[in-house]
């Protein structure tokens, strides 16, 4: 009852706020004082504009389910971390487990590891082949300098390679030309306690531009019912980017980051001395850095070459294990137009990712301790304009060789039909794979099962673990219904095979370090599944200063054991750790007196597997450009309840995700 009451108050507040601002708007002058034509070209180029509901042309021409979050969307979201931003992309499941862990999924396969999503920051993969997934907490790129985030739902193996099973998230930072000047941003709140960020950008001689930045943040724990506030975390990061443009279409980009932080952690670890299982709490020390070089050159009017290389280092000394990983990656891409109808691209790539693991507990280790996970690939694709400007067919494949399963083929065939300038239909069939992670091949995890007789269970990696594979069939429709109303609809049917499962237990008698019975289960590929669903994303801009957009996503998953496999637990997890329904509505208003107001209402259905209840909540932000270059903002998340659950932890009570408020000031010059 109280909760409902509060909800009403919150909604009422928003309504009153809206009306108050509306009243102000009627008195405000509508036009800027200086006519635009008096501005220099440079000033014009720097102006941010409101565009009609038209999507960028690349989106119109992409035969895939793509959503782009712009810098505008990022600023107006009011959130301070990358995973929280993804809540504003329809069809993406963002389930916060605690303050520093997120389970993120697109179209299913969501787990505490975001195994089925490939995430790249400026072309650098941040997907770790240790467990197959992303350490979301350490991907703190400075939000003010992100140009856009492209989220592609559906298999993307042909272009992006392995692990782009259910989607690809591309974070693209601004060209340093567009981040000139000084920016200082500071903020604080009850959950994101403090954040300070400084950037300076400028240009040197000729067509060289650069920026340097440093950012640090400190985050409080979420609500822990048993009083163990284990999940506080903090991170400091700094970096640079240099862009050089040369004649004849040459350009060079050089960028790098370093970071260091501590992440609160709480895990259950088996022990051969009493008690047989301990909950370990403490801080993971994390650090790392990367260096990326990217060189592009037009070889002729019709051919361009792109070469990218990067080095990435991650170090994690967690409370229960440690890993140092050094990755080197080189990619070459050639694009050439052949005749009037063919846009051919082909490329090759190689990667070496060396992992050295140290163990802290005799119940958790990897065999072997060190491993180099190598990758080599070739890729070719032809975009054929069957009818110029009308009908496009894209055929391509990637051939990738990995250390575990040898060659993997990831082909795709896609069709795009531009019915007219306002309407596009597309469809596609794609195969993608997820290659084994070190956990699935090398892990030895022993945990306590029963006291008398003393039984332990061991989860073991298997050298025979195969790649998981998906074949996705998709179709989509985009329409600019009117100059201000745009709608994007996609539907999909995915068929998965070789999904990871646990084998039946094999019982053995062990005498070291203490006498006990050991039931061993190994990773195998015993589960098949299908998923079906659709996503609808309307975007309406009734006025140049008002935008309402939203999304609804439906998802159903049916998983079964392959003959010989009897892993019902994982079947239930595949089917039940995703919400059947997800939706949000966002209203964005650009108001007079340099005010902008945003409100997001979002809802996620329950997760059946662990009885995590569904929830509906709201986020709001009010921003005010108080003086030229000075912006003040207040943002609140999870307005409707003091806390709610979003995902599950097996070993201890679920942390509740708290209502949060964040106040910030940004100064640019």
């Amino acid at each position: 009852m109280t909760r409902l009451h509060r909800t009403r108050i919150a909604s009422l507040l928003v309504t009153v706020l809206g009306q108050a601002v509306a009243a102000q708007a009627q008195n405000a002058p509508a036009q800027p004082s200086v006519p635009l034509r008096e501005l220099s070209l440079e000033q014009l180029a720097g102006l941010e504009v409101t565009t009609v509901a038209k999507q960028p042309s690349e989106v119109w021409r992409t035969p895939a389910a793509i959503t782009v979050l712009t810098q505008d969307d990022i600023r107006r979201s009011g959130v301070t971390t990358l995973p929280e931003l993804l809540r504003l992309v329809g069809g993406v499941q963002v389930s916060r487990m605690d303050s520093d862990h997120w389970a993120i999924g697109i179209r299913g396969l969501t787990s505490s590891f975001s195994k089925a999503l490939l995430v790249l920051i400026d072309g650098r993969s941040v997907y770790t082949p240790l467990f197959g997934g992303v350490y979301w907490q350490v991907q703190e790129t400075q939000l003010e300098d992100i140009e856009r985030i492209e989220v592609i739902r559906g298999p993307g193996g042909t272009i992006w390679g392995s692990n782009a099973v259910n989607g690809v998230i591309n974070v693209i930072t601004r060209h340093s030309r567009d981040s000139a000047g000084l920016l200082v941003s500071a903020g604080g709140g009850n959950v994101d306690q403090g954040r300070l960020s400084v950037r300076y950008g400028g240009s040197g001689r000729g067509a060289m531009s650069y920026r340097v930045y440093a950012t640090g943040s400190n985050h409080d724990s979420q609500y822990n019912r048993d009083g163990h506030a284990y999940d506080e975390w903090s991170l400091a990061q700094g970096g640079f980017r240099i862009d050089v443009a040369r004649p004849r279409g040459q350009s060079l980009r050089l960028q790098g980051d370093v970071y260091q932080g501590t992440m609160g952690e709480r895990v259950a670890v088996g022990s051969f001395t009493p008690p047989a299982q301990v909950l370990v709490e403490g801080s993971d020390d994390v650090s790392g850095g990367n260096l990326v070089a990217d060189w592009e050159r037009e070889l002729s009017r019709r051919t361009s070459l792109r070469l990218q290389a990067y080095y990435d280092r991650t170090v994690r000394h967690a409370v229960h294990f440690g890993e140092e990983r050094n990755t080197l990656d080189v990619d070459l891409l050639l694009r050439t137009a052949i005749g009037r109808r063919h846009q051919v691209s082909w490329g090759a790539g190689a990667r070496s990712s060396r992992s050295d693991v140290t163990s802290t507990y005799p119940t958790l280790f990897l065999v072997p301790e060190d491993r180099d996970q190598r990758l080599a690939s070739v890729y070719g694709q032809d975009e054929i304009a069957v009818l110029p400007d009308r009908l496009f067919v894209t055929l391509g494949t990637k051939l990738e060789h990995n250390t575990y399963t040898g060659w993997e083929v990831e082909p795709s065939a896609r069709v795009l039909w531009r019915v007219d300038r306002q309407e596009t239909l597309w469809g596609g069939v794609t195969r993608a794979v997820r290659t084994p992670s070190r956990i699935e091949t090398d892990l030895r995890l022993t945990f306590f099962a029963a006291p008398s007789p003393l039984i332990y269970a061991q989860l073991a990696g298997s050298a025979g673990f195969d790649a998981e594979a998906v074949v996705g069939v998709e179709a989509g429709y985009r329409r600019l219904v009117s100059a201000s109303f745009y709608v994007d609809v996609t539907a999909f049917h995915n068929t998965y095979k070789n999904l990871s499962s646990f084998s039946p237990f094999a019982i053995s008698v062990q005498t070291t370090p203490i006498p006990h019975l050991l039931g061993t289960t190994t990773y195998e590929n015993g589960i098949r599944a299908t998923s079906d669903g659709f996503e609808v994303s309307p975007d309406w801009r009734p006025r140049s200063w008002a935008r309402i957009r939203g999304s609804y996503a439906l998802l159903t998953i049916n998983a079964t054991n392959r003959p010989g496999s009897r892993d019902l637990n994982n079947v239930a997890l595949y089917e039940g750790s995703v919400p059947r329904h997800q939706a949000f509505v966002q209203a964005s208003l650009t108001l007079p007196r340099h005010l902008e107001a945003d409100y997001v209402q979002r809802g996620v259905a329950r997760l059946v597997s662990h009885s995590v209840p569904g929830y509906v909540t709201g986020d709001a932000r009010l921003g005010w450009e108080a003086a030229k270059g000075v912006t003040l903002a207040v943002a609140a998340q999870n307005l409707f309840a003091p806390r709610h659950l979003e995902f599950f932890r097996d070993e201890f009570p679920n942390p509740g995700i708290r209502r949060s408020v964040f106040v910030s000031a940004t100064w640019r010059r």
Partner: protein
Amino acid sequence: MAQVIHAGRRRWALGVATAAAMACALPAAAQRPREYQVKAAYLYGFGRFVEWPAAAPSAADGAFVVCVLGEDPFGRLLDQAVEGGVVKNQPVSVRRIGRAEDGGGCDTLFVSASEQPRLPRILEVLDHRPVLTVGDSPDFAQHGGMIGFSVEGSRVRFTVNLDAAQGAGLMLQSELLRVAATVLRGR
């Protein structure tokens, strides 16, 4: 259970109603300029950074003429932008034309995105004529137009095809080239 569902629905209803009320109740008063306001300002501004040859149309009729070819995306915005303006010591006027052949009398010609299918023919008609062609369709400059608009993020940028401009005897000043997102030139 029923009560919970009911509460959930009510929240949605409230949220959606609030959003709709916020969006519809307010009068038009944008803080940010619209995309085509900025493009109109560019069309006016380009004139200051381009030198036309002596034989150009503006020399003949005493006015600086900005033309729009195809579906007009500006509405009144272009007329408002140039009203009372002076370029090359001449008053600026706007003319809307339906065919590229009528473009000979223009100093700056904006080719609307609606003309994309006919682009090769339009550029052929205007080839080597002293008309600054500015286009709205993707890759306009790559296809042989002189200046192509693009929207990058929330900013309006442009690409310059220097060969096309020089081929028509137009001199583009360095400020224009410096601000351009990309300059395409001889290879």
